[in-house]
């Protein structure tokens, strides 16, 4: 019952927690401090020269943006529709359990295995070649579970009474979902989806096998083009470049741009969630 040892132990727990926070701060600061000096207009608007040792990273930024937008276009409608089905239409039964098992399975599949799958199905079997289309479809499969799980949670958070009120007035099921459920659930559904999209922007392993070009100093003209992508560009600069030491500032700046992109997306989601929680109280 000694309260003294209680205090010590609570401090041990606090130390573990703030230790993690300190490491996060260390990583972020290291990349910001060493990456920021290299970021200027030329860096983000010029084409790379000498296999990435000089010039900018414009094609990689554009490539990553293309992948993110394409992934959203494919994954968002599919994921949200699945969530709406699970939350509003599904009856208990084998089919529903099958979907839930499939979603849980997808959530656990390693990203490199998604890469193999994308290579086998989209790149080779469907003949898309290494392209934006193949990469987007692969990334969409990967972030589908994130979108489904968080969207379903948002739908469940809408009180039953809203649905029942609408149904009692004679609206059909779809009418009441559309007018009385979706408007309230949508911000929450988007929040979860944004987190998934942030993940897609930073992933390297799947696009390694399905899209990414080692060095391609031009912009894509169709969705069947290969592109450079920020995460892969960083990987190449850091490990494959013959003069990895010399291009260190370029590596840090690329890492910083990638982090800013991903963290902006994630912070947006987190802020949106905090705001919704404050506004929507049932």
């Amino acid at each position, binding site marked *: 019952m000694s309260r003294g040892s209680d205090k010590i132990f609570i401090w041990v727990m606090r130390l573990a927690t703030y230790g*993690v926070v300190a490491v996060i701060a260390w990583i972020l600061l290291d990349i910001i401090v060493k990456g920021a000096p290299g970021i200027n207009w030329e860096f983000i608007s010029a084409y790379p020269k000498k296999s990435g040792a000089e010039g900018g990273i414009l094609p990689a930024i554009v490539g990553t943006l293309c992948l993110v937008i394409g992934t959203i276009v494919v994954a968002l409608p599919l994921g949200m529709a699945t969530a709406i089905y699970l939350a509003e239409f599904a009856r208990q039964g084998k089919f529903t359990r099958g979907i839930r098992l499939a979603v849980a399975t997808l959530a656990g599949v390693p990203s490199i295995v998604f890469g193999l799958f994308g290579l086998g199905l989209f790149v080779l079997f469907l003949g898309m070649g290494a392209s934006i289309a193949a990469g987007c479809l692969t990334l969409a499969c990967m972030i589908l579970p994130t979108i489904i799980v968080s969207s379903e949670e948002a739908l469940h958070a809408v009180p039953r009474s809203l649905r029942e009120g609408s149904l009692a007035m004679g609206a059909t099921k779809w009418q009441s979902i559309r007018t009385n459920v979706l408007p309230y659930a949508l911000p929450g559904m988007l929040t979860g989806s944004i987190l998934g999209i942030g993940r897609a922007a930073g992933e390297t392993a799947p696009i390694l096998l399905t899209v990414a070009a080692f060095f391609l100093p031009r912009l894509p003209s169709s969705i069947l083009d290969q592109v450079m992508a920020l995460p892969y560009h960083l990987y190449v600069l850091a490990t494959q470049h013959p003069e990895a030491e010399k291009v260190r500032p370029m590596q840090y700046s690329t890492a910083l741009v990638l982090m800013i992109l991903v963290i902006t997306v994630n912070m947006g989601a987190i802020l949106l969630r905090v705001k919704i929680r404050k506004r929507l109280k049932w």
Partner: protein
Amino acid sequence: MKHRWKDKAIRLAFTALASTSILVVVLIFLFLGKEAFGFIFEPGLKELLNTRWIPVSFKRETFGIIPLITGSALVTLWATLIAVPISILSAVYISEFAGDREKEILKPVIELLAGIPSVVLGFFGLIVLAPIVKQAFGLSTGLIALTGAILLAFMAIPTMVSIAEDAIRSTPKSFRNASLALGASRLQTTWKVIVPAALPGIVAAVMLGMGRVIGETMAVMMVTGNAAIITGSPLESVRTLTATIAAEMGEVPFGSTHYQALFCVGIVLLITTFFINFIAQKVLERHRDVT
């Protein structure tokens, strides 16, 4: 009547869209199997049990995945050993001892860690962590299993903390009140009543974190040195299952034995993570039914 017909069509459309997830899972198994299929006949699945992975050779290639499995296992084991105590302590602290404002800051910050792309963590590991590890142990290189394990531990921590914290928070209030009413201190209540009650959820959290660690590719490829040797020492270079696929797939001719072998590695990964996640989900479900 017209409305009812329309409602049916809409339901059908949603059902069709929702079955995409099942389709994708089936296609993943199908296409991994399809690309790996030829390996069964030539050189045969027994080849995978070889103790050496020498996919490119002038004499004889061998495709034994044992060193890759031990490599993945070693890195995963050490990452778990590092991540579990830190995660449980943090999860307990955040859910039981942190103030409301503190909680509101700590949770998003730890989520931020989950958002850092693995290639950026790998880069940090390569440039900053590896030299530190090298010096600390007086080694000739810092690109070893332990460096990978430390990085992976940090990738697993957000998963473990958030799921464990959920489990701890969802233990019934009455447990806590009963224990406190009997005169136990807050710390005793936490560790002797609440944590045991939340244990299944904590176990699931650890397993889901491990699933993430086994499947991680980029960070581990950049810092573990990629030597395909069988070793039990965390201070040696290893090559994991994931890194092997990522590093070699770019250079193999489609349809070659090496190509098929890499898909076999993918299948091993898929099955391993499938079972880990499946068991974790079951544990979580049962836990949810109890509380």
